[in-house]
């Protein structure tokens, strides 16, 4: 019986023009979104390539100047042989994060969080604040990406094709006829839903493959393939939730119009209202420290450090006795810069740590409260798979901070020991190598949401099936 109804429904759906229009819309929007994401990330990659190139040019020019002097050492050594001048003034190193293969599918936080920093020998707060030029209007509106089509648009399309699944049959008087012919209600509704869900899932599967092709994802890389499979899993689970919800609402035996109103309200509730409420909750429980106060406190610290520059110098060397070798030729100016930097850093570090701690707690609240709304769960999971969630940028910043330690250490030790930058020393300047976090980081962020959406969907289906036992056909 299921098979008969299922096949019949497929026939009806294939002949239905509205249905084709809805599928066409889904395909068109996804293709547009994928191309759009692709263009955005291609631009970022071009920027990244440019950074490394210019970086190398500057460094080579400095090295060449020093080399010329080494071949013909007449007069004073060039100023670029001063490690302080190079590390604290002229040179910076661009630490660039490489984007994941699936990043173009979900822009996520990548229009807000920097994907590169210009690391210098100054403390981290001096370069961590830099941001890319963006029109705030564009950031506010967000990007039209595949994740948006999935999270916002897909449920609307699902609601549009399911809200009157049963009620319409009843309103048209068909239901009584079918029941009279001995078609079990549950079989009928499940077959009808399955036909629709089957087609949509098939289309989604095709769309995932198509968008992967459009963004040029290399599926021969096992990790990318696995992420894409999970991506489809998340979309499928999300779609399953909305189908299940529609199935349940249909089981309430309300008129079609009421079903439509209720489902529209539920969409609004899960996709618009709950996320904004959870955002308020997370922000109120664990607000970020004030950046405004940070600014004034940093300034006070800088001034204090300048005033006490001499003493600070002593204490800096006291803190770093290993650097104050006997007979070290101290470059006074840059020593003083380092001392001031250290004094400011002492003030800023605990505040920055507070920023991080609060951010981690906020993310913790969201990790927990994502289970109030499948839309939040789906967003978190899709961002994690695309590598564009906050945790990914945090991981990048941590790598940059570790690298900054090496880079700064390289120059400060030379400054304090009074060494000059030789041509060989330029080659030995540490370079940043980004390591993408393993599959695990994405996986842990995806498992919970995936399971949640699937289980909730299943509960809704079972609940609906129970209700259909008492569904009046007339």
């Amino acid at each position, binding site marked *: 019986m299921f098979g008969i109804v299922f096949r019949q429904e497929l026939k009806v759906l294939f002949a239905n023009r509205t249905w084709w229009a809805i599928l066409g819309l889904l395909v068109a929007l996804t293709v547009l979104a994928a191309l*759009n994401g692709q263009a955005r990330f291609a631009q970022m990659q071009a920027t990244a390539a440019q950074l490394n190139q210019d970086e190398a040019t500057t460094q080579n020019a400095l090295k060449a100047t020093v080399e010329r002097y080494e071949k013909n050492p007449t007069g004073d050594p060039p100023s670029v042989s001063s490690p302080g001048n190079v590390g604290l003034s002229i040179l910076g190193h661009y630490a660039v994060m490489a984007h994941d293969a699936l990043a173009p599918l979900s822009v996520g936080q990548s229009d807000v969080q920097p994907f590169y920093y210009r690391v210098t020998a100054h403390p981290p707060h001096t370069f961590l604040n830099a941001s890319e030029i963006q029109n705030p209007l564009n950031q506010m509106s967000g990007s039209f990406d595949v994740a948006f089509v999935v999270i916002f648009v897909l449920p609307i399309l699902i609601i549009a094709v399911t809200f009157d699944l049963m009620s319409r049959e009843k309103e048209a008087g068909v239901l009584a006829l079918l029941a009279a012919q001995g078609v079990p209600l549950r079989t009928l509704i499940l077959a009808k839903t399955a036909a629709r869900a089957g087609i949509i899932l098939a289309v989604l599967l095709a769309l995932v493959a198509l968008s992967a092709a459009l963004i040029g994802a290399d599926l021969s890389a096992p990790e990318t393939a696995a992420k894409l499979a999970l991506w489809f899993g998340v979309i499928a689970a999300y779609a399953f939730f909305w189908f299940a919800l529609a199935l349940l609402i249909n089981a309430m035996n309300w008129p079609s119009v009421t079903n439509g109103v209720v489902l529209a309200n539920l969409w609004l509730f899960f996709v618009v209202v709950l996320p904004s409420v*959870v955002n308020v909750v997370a*922000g109120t429980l664990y607000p970020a420290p004030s950046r405004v106060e940070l600014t004034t406190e940093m300034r006070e610290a800088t001034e204090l450090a300048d005033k006490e520059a001499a003493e600070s110098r002593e204490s800096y060397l006291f803190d770093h006795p290993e650097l104050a070798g006997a007979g070290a030729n101290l470059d006074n100016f840059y020593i003083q810069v380092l001392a001031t930097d250290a004094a400011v850093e002492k003030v800023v570090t605990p505040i920055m740590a507070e920023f991080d701690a609060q951010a981690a707690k906020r993310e913790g609240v969201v990790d927990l409260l994502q289970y109030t709304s499948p839309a939040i769960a789906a967003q978190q999971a899709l961002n994690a798979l695309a590598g564009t969630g906050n945790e990914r940028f945090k991981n990048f910043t941590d790598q940059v901070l570790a690298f900054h330690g090496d880079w700064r250490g390289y120059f400060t030790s030379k400054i304090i020991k009074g060494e000059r930058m030789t041509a060989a020393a330029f080659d030995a300047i540490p370079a940043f190598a980004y390591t993408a976090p393993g599959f695990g980081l994405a996986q842990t962020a995806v498992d919970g949401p995936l399971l949640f959406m699937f289980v909730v969907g299943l509960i809704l289906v079972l609940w609906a099936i129970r209700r259909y036992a008492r569904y009046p056909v007339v």
Partner: protein
Amino acid sequence: MIASIARKEFIAALRDGRVMWSAAIFAVMLIAALASAAQRYADISQERAAAQAIVNEQWQNQGEKNPHAAAHYGVYAFKAVTPLSFFDTGVSSFTGVSIWLEAHKQNMAEGEPARDATAIARFGELTGAFTLQMLLPLLVILLAFASFAGEREQGTLRQVLAMGVSPLDLLFGKALGAAAAVGLFIAPIMVLGLIGLAMAPDGLAFFGNGMVVAALYIIYAVIFLFLTLAVSAAADSSRTALVVMVAFWAVSSVALPKAASDAARLVHDTPTAIAFQRAVAADLETGVDGKSLDAQVNERREATLRLYKVDAVEKLPINFQGIVLGLQEQMSNAVFDKHFGQLNGLMLRQQGIFEAMSALSPRLAVQLASMELSGTSLGAHLDFAAQAEAYRRNLIDTMNKAMTMNSSGANPEYRAGPELWGQVGPFNFTHPGLTASLSKLGPSFMVMFLWLVASVIAAVMAVRKLKALIA
């Protein structure tokens, strides 16, 4: 006749549990959003004012210094918030809150709040404006989608029309009844909100803005009301009317603003920060007009020596280094004007794309107008940056002149003190008044007006062809 139809619609709406539940939830969210806006305004305005006071004090009490050292010390400009800033946060989550004003450099604003938010903030912030822009239309749709189509399905439309009721009376009666039902929830909140605004610090200065904002949202709701009535009259069933209106709402309110942002980037792309810095650095080398600093300094040296009739810079009664700094500042200002001017121009052209696309989306139109009037638009941020920059230039100029006039060969160790620091005065961001905001809103007002007219005409035309029976 219109009055009695309106009364019937009003009572029917109040008896509809669906509508009342939706309206009650909406009202609770709006009240919560407004209350939190008042709280945030109180906190943040105080915090920014305190920070500005600290920075001003630091400047004033920096001790005795060479004026150019003071110029390097500089000050910070903090963006003061308006009483409506948290009713409609606009773009302010994505713009910096302070700018460092120092010698030789025009810096960009720092400290975007969005960097400290979780990814779910991107779904939208729960503000009064967000609630009104996103939820109010949906409430109106739920209230009105069945107005004609539902009566047709029940067969009452046939009876009413047979009684000789004019379709236009029916339309305006239904509109009035629905408006009264929504107004029952919204009007008291709006009035309370406006009273709260008037009582907030600086609130009276923005009361006019608040009134215009309130009026805009009322018009916005009316647009959706007439659109829904038009669709309800023309649709073959209330089911279709609901689907069409919800789809229109979703596309125009949710999808189009995102599409607008991508279209804006495609059409007028802004440079990357690195490209921008490089372009500025390149022009700082050569000067905008191709005249290098050295050439300008030489020219000025000759002229100054001639003026004072001496043959060497050391013999001048003034400090020529101060003049050099002034020239350098003039030259770099021209470079900043060129590049920041181009960048701001690009961003405003991107906003133009949003304005153009608001022709398809009433939400976009009301959103642009609402944040402009709330002082949280792109334009307001650029105003802040411009005022801060003007303040910086005056500050640097004052320092350079003091250096030129007071430290000379006779007095090389000149140190300025609090009198000079005090000459600069504190920085205060003054938000452009209502008239200035209104003058920028031509496109948005025009779009809203056209939507209003079009929705009423559509409704009138739809009821003129009203069919009493289901086809």
